[in-house]
C-alpha cells in the first residue's frame, strides 16, 4: 500500500469507529440500553492507529472501550452491534449486552475479560504459543491507565521481557481511572517509564495522532516479530464521555461539551488526506453504521438455551 493509500485507509477506520460511537451515543440517549456502554469517543486514533500496524493473523486483546479495536481488526459492525445488543447474530451468540466479549479467533480477536487488566497474563500466554508453534505472530494488548495499576501487568511484563515474548502493550491513557485522575494514580507523569524496570522500550506517543500511533506500533511490531521482545506504548488520549454512558461525571472539572472532541483525531488526520475523500469516507461510515444498527435491531433475541451453551467443549 502506498503511503497515501495507507493514510486514507487509516482515516476510513477512524471514520467507521467514530460513526459507530456517535450512533450508539444517539441510540442510547433516545432509547436507553440494557447494559453498560463504555464509550471510546475521542480514542479512535489509538485504536485504529495501533491495529493498522498488525497483520490479520496477529492476536488482539482489546480493552474496556475497545469496540474500535475489534472493528479495525476486521470484525463486521453488524456482529459487534449484535453483541452489544445481545442478539443471536453477535460473535458470542447473544450472551452479550453492554461491554461484551467480542471474539473472532479467525482474525486473532481473542476477547476481553470482565476483570480489568486480566489480559496481560493471557496475552503473554498467546505470545508463548506463537513462539512455541514457530509462527511470527504478534500479540497486541490494549489497556487503560487504570488497568496499568494491576499486579498482572508486573507479573506478565517480568517474564515476557525475560522470555522475549512477541508482545506490544498499548496503553490508552485517557487520564481517568473511572473517577481518579492520572496524577493521583501514577507517581510519574508517564506510564511508559515503567518499561525501564523490565528492560524494554517505553514509548510515549500522541494518542490523537493516528499516524504517530501507527508508526510507533509498527516499530514495536517489528521488534516483536524479530524475537526482540515486548514494547510498552503509552498513547496519551482523552476521555470525552463518562466511564459509562449515563455517568454524570460529577467528579470532573474539565468536562468538555457533549460530543465535541478536543484535538479531534479525525481532524488531525484530515490534514493528510484529500478533503473530498474524507467527506466520502465519513458518509460511507455513517451509512454503514446506520444500516448495521437497523439490521441488528431487527434480529431475534437469543433462545433461552444460550445461557447454558459453551460451558463445556
Amino acid at each position, binding site marked *: 500500500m502506498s503511503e497515501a493509500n495507507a493514510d486514507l485507509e487509516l482515516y476510513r477506520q477512524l471514520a467507521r469507529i467514530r460513526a459507530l460511537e456517535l450512533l450508539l451515543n444517539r441510540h442510547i440517549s433516545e432509547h436507553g440500553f440494557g447494559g453498560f456502554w463504555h464509550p471510546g469517543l475521542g480514542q479512535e486514533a489509538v485504536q485504529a492507529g495501533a491495529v493498522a500496524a498488525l497483520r490479520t493473523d496477529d492476536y488482539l486483546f482489546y480493552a474496556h472501550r475497545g469496540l474500535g479495536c475489534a472493528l479495525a481488526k476486521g470484525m463486521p459492525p453488524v456482529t459487534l452491534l449484535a453483541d452489544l445488543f445481545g442478539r443471536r447474530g453477535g460473535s458470542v451468540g447473544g450472551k452479550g449486552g453492554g461491554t461484551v466479549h467480542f471474539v473472532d479467533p479467525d482474525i486473532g480477536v481473542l476477547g476481553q475479560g470482565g476483570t480489568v487488566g486480566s489480559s496481560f*497474563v493471557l496475552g503473554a500466554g498467546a505470545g508463548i*504459543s506463537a513462539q512455541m508453534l514457530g509462527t511470527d505472530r504478534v500479540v497486541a494488548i490494549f489497556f487503560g491507565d487504570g488497568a496499568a495499576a494491576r499486579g498482572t501487568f508486573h*507479573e506478565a511484563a517480568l517474564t515476557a521481557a525475560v522470555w522475549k515474548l512477541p508482545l506490544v502493550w498499548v496503553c490508552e491513557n485517557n487520564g481517568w481511572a473511572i473517577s481518579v485522575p492520572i496524577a493521583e494514580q501514577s507517581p510519574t507523569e508517564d506510564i511508559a517509564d515503567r518499561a525501564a524496570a523490565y528492560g524494554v522500550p517505553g514509548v510515549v506517543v500522541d494518542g490523537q495522532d493516528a499516524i504517530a500511533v501507527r508508526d510507533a506500533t509498527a516499530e514495536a511490531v517489528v521488534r516483536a516479530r524479530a524475537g526482540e521482545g515486548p514494547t510498552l506504548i503509552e498513547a496519551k488520549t482523552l476521555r470525552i464521555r463518562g466511564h459509562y454512558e449515563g455517568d454524570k461525571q460529577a467528579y470532573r472539572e474539565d468536562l468538555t461539551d457533549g460530543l465535541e472532541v478536543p484535538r479531534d483525531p479525525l481532524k488531525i488526520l484530515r490534514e493528510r488526506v484529500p478533503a473530498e475523500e474524507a467527506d466520502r469516507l465519513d458518509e460511507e461510515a455513517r451509512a454503514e453504521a446506520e444500516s448495521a444498527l437497523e439490521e441488528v435491531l431487527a434480529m431475534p433475541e437469543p433462545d433461552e438455551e444460550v445461557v447454558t451453551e459453551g460451558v463445556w467443549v
Partner: protein
Amino acid sequence: MTEAPQLGYARAINQALGEEMRREERVWMLGQDVGRMGGVFGVTRGLFEEFGAGRVRDTTLNETFIVGAAVGAAMTGTIPVAELQFADFMLIAGDEVFHKMAKWRYMHGARLSVPMVLRLPTGVLGGVGAEHSQSLEALGMHFPGLRVALPATPADAKGLLKTAIRDPNPVLFFEHKGMYRVKGPVPEDPDFLVPFGEAAVRRRGEHASVVATGLMVGRALEAAEELAAEGVELEVIDPRTLVPLDMETIVSSVERTGRALVAQEAVRTAGAGAEIAARIQEAAFFSLDAPVWRLGAMDTSIPQSPDLEQLVIPGVAQIAAAARELVAL
C-alpha cells in the same frame, strides 16, 4: 496378564507427563522450579532434560502469570500443563483460575476453548502449615467450566492426568502431596487412561457405603478392614473426579446398603462431601435407613505442627467409629 509394575504416585504423574509430551508436541509445562530442579516435590524430574527449556519452562514467583499465561496459550493452539507449588496458591491466581480458565469459553460464545491442566499439590504433608495444606477441591466444583480430578492411587494419578491432558476442557488436578511416595501397580501402556466421571468401588460391602476422596480413600479402606473383623462390611467408593461426578455408582451403592458416610480431608463445612451428601438424599431418600453423615476436617486452620495437623483431619479410627455408629442406627 502380567502384573503392572509398582510405582510411586509422584513417579506415576511424571510418567504421564513424559508420555503425553512424547505423544503430542503441543503439550508443554510451566511452573516454579519445574525445570532444572524437577519441581519442589521432584514430580517433574528429568522432563527438562528430555524436552528442553522451551517445553518445560521455569517461571518466577508469579502465580497470575503461571495460570493466566497457560490460559492464553491454551486458547491459541497449545496444551499447557501448569503447576502451582501448592494448591493453596490457586487463591493468589483466583481470577485466572476461577474466571479465565473456567469462563473464557463460555463468555466468548464457545468460539475458543481452554485445553489445559492445572496441577495442584494438595492436602496435608506434615508441617507445612495453614496456607500450604488445604484441600480446596470444592472451589473447583463451584465454578462451572472446570473439571476436577482427585486421584487416590498411583494408577489413577497416571491415568487421570493423561485423560486430563487429552480433555479439551480445563482441568484442576488435585494431586495429594502426602501420597507422592505411596506405591501401587501402575500400567505401562502409553494409552492407559482413567476416564472422568467413573467412580471406583474400592471395596464391596453390604452394611454401609463410604464415599471417600483423596487421602481418605486409604483411611476408609483401613477402617473397613477393622470393621470387617467385627462382621460389618463397608463398601468404599472413590469418585476419582468431582466434576464430572459419578452419582450413579454412589446412589446404586446406597440403594443397596441403605446407609452413607461421606469422608473428605477438606474442612467439613461446605466441602465436596456436603454436595455429595445432599445429592444422595435427593436421589436415594427412600432407600436410606439413617441420615447421610459427613466426616471432614474440623472448622479450623491446619496447624503447622505435624502432630497437631492429624488431629484436625479425619483418621482411620474416626472413620471406623462413625461407620460403626451409623450402621448401629
